[in-house]
């Protein structure tokens, strides 16, 4: 059963230095507040996992919190490059970072395998590309048809953290809009925390809503606006200007550090 907890307390309980952590969210419901709190808590040596590491992971990588990144697309969506991600890979600043990259299909299936309790997933993918030599996949032959396929190992993060619109007091969670790969990430992980916009007495399941039961979660924290500058469909709007602004502020190491210091590290630590 999930406990309703403060964000700071929940993360201190669940995340340790060196853990593999998936803060998921596919262009929507990105758990910015939780990522920022991890930085304030000084978490280090993390293996960060996410299909689309965007601005939040750019910030975490730029602060040196990650030793490894597992991902399939690292860009500032619609804007361009992630400058801190690039600086880490191109120049090792502020530290060298190990990279394991996939295609979206590969990574989505790896999460699904993790959620299914399977060791790997099969797909028609990666074939003919240079990715094969650079990532963790193996060719396999279908035992029924003889077709050549690719196996990708299951993703099993130590911790998955996602943001959702709502939870009830018992810790059942519901999210809607673009569901991304959050359900798979939660079910694949050993430990889980969900931040939510609001806590209700009773959840009302909605058509198209994704419900995660409290008995599959460890912690739920009430963090209104916890996905901004991303958004929570129906509750907050995506701050597109911030994504454009980030392109400017993140180009320069000093400007980046100053911004993080003022707006993230200097923020009030969560309870």
């Amino acid at each position, binding site marked *: 059963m999930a406990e309703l907890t403060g964000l700071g307390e929940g993360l201190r309980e669940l995340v340790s230095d060196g853990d593999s952590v998936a803060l998921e969210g*596919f*262009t929507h419901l990105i758990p910015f507040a939780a990522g920022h709190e991890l930085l304030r808590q000084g978490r280090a040596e993390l293996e960060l996992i996410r299909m689309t590491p965007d601005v939040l992971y750019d910030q975490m990588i730029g602060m040196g919190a990650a030793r490894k990144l597992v991902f399939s*697309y690292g860009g500032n969506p619609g804007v361009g490059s992630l400058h801190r991600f690039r600086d880490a890979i191109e120049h090792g600043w502020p530290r060298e970072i190990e990279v394991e990259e*996939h295609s979206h*299909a590969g990574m989505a299936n790896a999460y699904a395998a993790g959620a299914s309790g399977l060791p790997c997933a099969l*797909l028609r993918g990666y074939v003919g590309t240079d990715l094969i030599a650079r990532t963790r996949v193996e060719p396999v032959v279908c035992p029924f048809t003889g077709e050549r396929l690719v196996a990708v190992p299951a993703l099993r993060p130590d911790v998955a953290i996602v943001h959702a619109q709502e939870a009830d007091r018992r810790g059942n969670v519901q999210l809607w*809009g673009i569901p991304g790969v959050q359900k798979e990430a939660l079910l694949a992980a050993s430990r889980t925390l969900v931040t939510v916009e609001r806590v209700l007495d009773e959840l009302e399941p909605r058509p198209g809503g994704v419900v995660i039961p409290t008995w599959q979660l460890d912690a739920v924290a009430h963090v209104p606006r916890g996905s901004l500058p991303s*958004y929570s469909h129906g509750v907050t709007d995506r701050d597109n200007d911030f994504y454009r602004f980030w392109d400017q502020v993140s180009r320069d190491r000093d400007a980046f550090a100053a911004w993080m210091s003022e707006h993230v590290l200097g923020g009030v630590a969560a309870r």
Partner: protein
Amino acid sequence: MIAASLGEVQTVVAARRLREASSVFIGVGRPSTAAILARRVHNPGLVLVYESGTVGAKPTRVPLSIGDGELAETADFIVSVPEMFNYWIGAGRIEVAFLGAAQVDRFANLNSTVIGAYDHPKARLPGAGGAPEIAAACGEVIVIVPHARRTFVEKLDFVTSVGHGTGPGSRRQLGFRGAGPSAVITDLGVLEPDPATCELTLTAMHPGVELEAIRAATGWDLHVSDDLKPTEPPTVQELTVLRGLTSR
């Protein structure tokens, strides 16, 4: 009306390619603009499919990200990422896909991973995203890129997704189900794979562009079709709708 820019011509030409299509898979930027334009002008029934999982989105403006709220609000339905890549893309249910890239070679193979060596890249690019499986499985692929020597290269620094591989038979050998790239649309013209050799051949040139400029912007000895045609300039309607979409 101000004459169309080459970028606008590129977008309009891409949109016209969707006249007969039932569904198109798109990322952000010019491909998204072209697909929205096609739905408004050429093919109102066109189903726009975004990687974020929104199927049948009907945006009224060009979204900044593939996850913008308007895409979800106007979609016929929304699916998870695993479902998008397994049931819809992997199974070959999407007819046309628009792809961009940092580098393209003469067989329309694409690089969006690194410039330079993988371990010590000169420029680290975003990476594969959905491209490898989209390029393998969608019915056909249309590549939308700027025409420049650094984009049209003799040899890719990294093969992120396969177009026509090393030539005829490559795709069959790799077990791909989709037909692969049918066109590369640039801001200077249109290149299509030669039916016999699969090599990209210039088949159309945009208004005001010189053949020499296209050759100079291509990093290999470019083949030119015997049937090279001028691009039909954008109509007033196409331009008006396009400018309405991009000015908002």
